[in-house]
């Protein structure tokens, strides 16, 4: 029976009606009987030994549940990769806002006073706050040398190229921390009883990360820990690893009190205490021929991991692998390291290292162009990877990607050439300067190298008693469309109407571990497993003679109902198997880093107003090759949303630090763009397919994060003729840059001078 294709159509969002009617259940919407509220007592200093904790007598502490490190039944750590991060500080603290004690009480209004009534005395230790201080090693705060992880990627003969270089171009590029700023703050509810163990419900991306962490923390077996994802109001990586910490806290309070405990952070606590994007510093030294071809180079990529290792090694890995961009490097040496500072640990945020290293690469390409006297367009044309060539990790590009054409198309739809010439003329006078900027990049989807093999994801598809179909995955919906697209894929695979398929709410009691919802892997990797598991359901029904090879929806429903009535359950499982032709060497850090890369060219048109030194983005073109677009509306929404976050990353979102603590932890002072700050963002797709992805899809969730910052800063450089190499690029920084070049004043006056410099 023929079925109109569902994949490729913008079918209705599965949980959309709940969202527009306000009936979705987010964690703070849930109330359990007898529930207590929890709060966290946190360190006020960046580093030191805990000497004494005093509880003020003005509070009746008998009413409170109090949990300290000694109450932890299992291991006092949040188990992730290395187990160095304590759940509660015991003898020492290593960063401001580090959790020390937990409190619970039935009246949540009493908690702030109670927290304030606990004073902790410390013996302070010297603390470090920058990558440079960490590298100097005057203080060792982690391991032997403050270094969480290093990687070395080498290709070709990099030491031999310098003598042949016509140009050697150097540059250093830095990016700041960025707060994920999901509009729903972190929250968890935990309940405990001896029979069932621990159950947590919360705002989260990765149920099985929390499951693993709670097993170790509470010393409970797998079947005595249950994690349920509630509707999650944005995540972007900020709820990848952090929820394990807040779940642990709620669980400990629940275990001690015997009552359900809800912990919901307010905005200030969430901003100050939870993870942010790793700050980075990238140094490029590149040998270039006079034909404008890259001969080779050295890249030093350093990221600030904060006080504990958490995910820094993986962020570092992705950043290092992407550091060379979409270009052909005959020789390269990439030295990457993640270092420790006394700040709350930095963590996952959409892009996961790639936005940092790609910012550097794309700024550096414009620098090379300038030094050689060629255009930003030309320098990229001459160095783009071609099919058959190998990346920096020696991964051969096997798909027919044509980056020349991609660039040409982006230039055309953005009217680049015409605008560039127009702006060059108009920038001669007045107080407005306009510019165009390009960023070309790639983004690998799925876990790096052997990661997917290690994850060994399992997916289930179920034929239900009523004849409908359910997808069983631990992949979570948090706005990107997981439920919708995985249902689409299963429906397509089974040739059933989209309405007959749904996705089960991720609950570790119900669903297998299909891996974390990260790394742009859900549609591509998990979706492909959904496809095969769905086919498994069909196969079972056919082999049971309940269904013929060709069937309609009604026939499927009847067959399914009958099977379940007879056998009790109809479930088919599919486990990830690494493709035979993907090789990755973890030691040499070489080989096929990712099953698939998506490719992109982004172009920004900006205005700099010399009265305020402010930048506005007037037009933004996002063109990308993504394998196959399974859901046009969702895909477009992902790109636009990611570009908006990238614009924030480059022009607005500055974390103000003081002694390791974020000072501007409020929405008033941490600035993300509003509706009036962004132009309509124009999205275009190309589709080459992808054999490793469901219905040809590649991952796209993180891709849009990589392009906006370099495209915009390149555009500012084009407008002003000045290099800017650090983001966020605020008006204050632009003013400083202009002043340094002696170009300060706008043309209100005919003479040069800022206030105070009258000539």
């Amino acid at each position, binding site marked *: 029976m023929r079925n109109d294709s569902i994949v490729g159509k913008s079918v209705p969002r599965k949980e959309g009606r709940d*969202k527009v009617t306000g009936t979705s259940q987010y964690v703070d919407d849930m109330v359990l009987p007898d529930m207590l509220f929890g709060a966290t007592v946190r360190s006020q200093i960046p580093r030191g030994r805990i000497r004494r904790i005093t509880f003020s007598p003005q509070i009746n502490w008998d009413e409170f549940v109090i949990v300290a490190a000694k109450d932890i039944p299992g291991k006092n750590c949040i188990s992730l990769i290395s187990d160095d991060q304590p759940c509660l500080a015991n003898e020492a603290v290593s960063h401001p806002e580090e959790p020390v004690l937990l409190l619970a009480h039935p009246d949540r209004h009493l908690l702030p006073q109670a927290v304030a009534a606990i004073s902790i005395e410390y013996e302070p230790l010297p603390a470090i706050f920058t990558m440079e201080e960490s590298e100097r090693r005057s203080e060792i705060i982690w391991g032997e040398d403050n270094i969480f992880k290093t990687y070395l990627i080498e290709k070709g003969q990099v030491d031999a190229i310098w003598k042949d270089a016509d140009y050697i171009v150097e540059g250093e590029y830095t990016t700041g921390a960025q707060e994920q700023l999901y509009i*729903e703050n972190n929250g968890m509810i935990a309940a405990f009883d001896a029979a069932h163990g621990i159950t947590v419900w919360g705002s989260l991306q990765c149920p099985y990360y929390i499951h693993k962490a709670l097993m170790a923390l509470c010393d409970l077996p797998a079947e005595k820990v249950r994690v349920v994802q509630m509707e999650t109001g944005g995540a972007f990586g900020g709820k990848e690893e952090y929820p394990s910490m807040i779940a642990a806290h709620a669980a400990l309070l629940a275990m001690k009190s015997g009552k359900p405990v809800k912990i919901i952070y307010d905005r200030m606590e969430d901003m100050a205490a939870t993870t942010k994007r790793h700050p980075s510093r990238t140094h490029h030294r590149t040998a270039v021929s006079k034909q404008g071809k890259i001969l080779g180079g050295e890249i030093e990529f350093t990221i600030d991991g904060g006080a504990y290792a958490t995910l820094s090694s993986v962020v570092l890995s992705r950043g290092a692998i992407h550091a060379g961009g979409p270009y052909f490097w005959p020789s390269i040496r990439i030295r990457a390291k993640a270092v420790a500072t006394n700040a709350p640990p930095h963590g996952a945020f959409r892009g996961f290292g790639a936005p940092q290293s790609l910012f550097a690469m794309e700024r550096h390409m414009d620098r090379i162009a300038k030094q050689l006297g060629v255009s930003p367009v030309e320098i990229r044309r001459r160095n783009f990877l071609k099919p058959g060539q190998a990346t920096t990790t020696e991964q051969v590009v096997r798909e027919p990607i044509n980056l020349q054409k991609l660039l040409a198309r982006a230039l055309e739809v953005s009217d680049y050439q015409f605008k560039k010439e127009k702006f060059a003329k108009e920038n001669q006078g007045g107080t407005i300067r306009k510019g165009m900027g390009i960023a070309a990049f790639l983004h690998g989807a799925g876990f790096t190298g052997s990661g997917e093999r290690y994850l060994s994801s399992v997916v289930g598809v179920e034929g239900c008693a009523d004849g409908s179909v359910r997808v069983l995955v631990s992949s979570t919906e948090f706005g990107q469309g997981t439920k919708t697209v995985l249902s689409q894929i299963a429906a397509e695979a089974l040739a059933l109407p989209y309405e007959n398929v749904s996705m089960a709410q991720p609950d570790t009691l119900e669903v297998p571990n299909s891996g974390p919802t990260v790394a742009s892997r859900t549609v591509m990797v998990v979706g492909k497993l959904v496809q095969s598991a769905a086919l498994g359901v069909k196969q079972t029904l056919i082999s049971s003679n309940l269904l013929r090879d060709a069937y309609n929806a009604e026939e499927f429903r009847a067959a399914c109902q009958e099977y379940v009535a007879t056998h009790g359950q109809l479930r088919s499982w599919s486990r990830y198997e690494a493709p035979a032709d993907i090789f990755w060497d973890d030691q040499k850090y070489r080989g096929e880093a990712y099953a698939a890369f998506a490719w992109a060219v982004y172009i920004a048109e900006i205005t700099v107003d010399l009265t305020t030194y402010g930048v506005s983005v007037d037009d933004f073109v996002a063109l990308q090759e993504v394998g196959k677009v399974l859901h046009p509306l969702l895909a477009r*929404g992902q790109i636009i949303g990611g570009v*908006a*976050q990238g614009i924030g990353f480059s022009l607005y979102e500055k974390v103000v630090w003081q002694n390791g603590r974020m000072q501007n932890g409020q929405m008033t002072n941490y600035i993300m763009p509003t*509706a009036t700050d962004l132009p309509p963002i124009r999205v275009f797709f190309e589709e080459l397919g992808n054999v490793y992805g469901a219905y040809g899809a590649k991952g796209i969730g993180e891709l849009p994060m990589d392009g906006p910052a370099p495209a915009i800063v390149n555009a500012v450089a084009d407008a002003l003729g000045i290099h800017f190499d650090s983001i966020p690029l605020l008006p204050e920084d632009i003013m400083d840059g202009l002043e340094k070049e002696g170009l300060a004043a706008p043309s209100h006056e005919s003479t040069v001078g800022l206030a105070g410099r009258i000539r």
Partner: protein
Amino acid sequence: MTDSRAGHVQARISFTINGGTRTVHAHPMERLLDVLRERLQLTGAKEGCGEGECGSCSVLIDGMLVNSCLVPVLQAEGSNIITIEGIAAGDTLHILQEAFLQGGGAQCGICTPGMILAAVHLLNRNPEPTWEEIREGLSGNLCRCTGYTQIIEAVAEAARRRATA
């Protein structure tokens, strides 16, 4: 048992909400947001920032868009409140809710109730807004997922449909 509000007189406050009259006993300074969510189980309004910056707590009071995290419940006495739960007519969605659904205006959904109410407020006053006017009308509602484009398109589409209905 210690009560944070012990010693403070509770007030009896009545208002119309989504078409029905309700009376609550609450501390006069309790935030309207908390009264809605905790006492009336209307959890559509969300707390995103607690300081009137994000708009996810927006409701309509006497037809005016306000941030309910900044309204002490005593000041809502006698008023007519509409929350997201009161926007649809039974099972029939409001034209804006339909437009958001069809146009990808909601991703994670946490800003959506406030955003839809802000759009209702805008269209009630300006039935055929320009792109700029829509942006301005939604400028107090932050969205981290969508980058706003599909939200603005949904509002424009709803306005178009209403005009041709």
